[in-house]
């Protein structure tokens, strides 16, 4: 297999899915953001966004923190160090493959 094809084959499949890629890219640029922000920026519905976040959380890429803003529940999300490294690696691999 030539190196370019190998690069494509080795892309992180958890991040490669478009919805999760959007979430990872948005969280990569910030310290943390809440569920509402991701909902607004990605244009996904709540169910789809939740399932993508769960998948990223299971992979250890996203940390979920349940808190309150005043009396309103708030879900804060951030990329873990593993998630940051995985996203950085993904971008590098994609750049090389393209």
């Amino acid at each position, binding site marked *: 297999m030539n190196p370019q094809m190998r690069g494509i084959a080795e892309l992180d499949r958890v991040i490669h899915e478009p919805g999760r890629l959007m979430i990872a890219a*948005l969280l990569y640029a910030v310290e943390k953001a809440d569920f509402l922000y991701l909902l607004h920026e990605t244009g996904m519905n709540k169910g789809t966004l939740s399932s993508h976040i769960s998948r990223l959380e299971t992979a250890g890429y996203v940390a979920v923190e349940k808190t309150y803003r005043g009396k309103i529940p708030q879900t804060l999300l951030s990329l873990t160090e593993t998630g940051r490294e995985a996203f950085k690696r993904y971008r590098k691999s994609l750049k090389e493959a393209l």
Partner: protein
Amino acid sequence: MEQIDNMLARPKRYANIDGLGELTAGIMCLGFAFFQWEQIRSPAGAVWHSMYLFAIYFGALIAALHYGPRAIKSRITYPRTGFVEYRKRGRLWLSVASGALAAAVSVLIWIAVRHHWDMQMGALIFLGIAPAYAYRFAKTARWKWAVAAAIAVSSLAIAFISPDSLVDLTGDARLKPFVRFAGSEMLNLAAVGVLTLISGAISLWLYLRHTQPPVQEAQ
């Protein structure tokens, strides 16, 4: 790849989605302009020339500009389109760059005052605000390029005003050398302040129009 880069840039643009960045900049410029206006038209011994008032006035202005937008964001922006906490890394180079820029501007002002280039140098300094505004704000909406152009045009227009017309504003002869430069700076600050304030108000109005008030449920 371009789409990923665009996604990475979105949180930065989100900081001014409600126009509060421009409103803050506008109020800051008008606050400075108002203080200079009072200094220009007051006699040399007036309270507007005291260091105490300077410290109190700018302390209050900076505190209002620091806490005001935060309070508005937590009441309007975060409940409507979400909360974002930005990364704090990489601030050192920003501080160094800001310091270098401030030093360069101080040198330009010193040269300007020595050579009586008051209005032109003031305009040159403020002409630099147009690209800075374009870089910071105009990327989010096309119409803001018109605001950047208006800032550049206003700086150029002020450069052609006779410094003597500003000197006439003060009755105190001792202040005349100060007024020549401070007057130019005041006019530029007022122009930039009004333009960014208008732009920020339009952004806020559009933001409120296109977003819905929050419903009481989990986010």
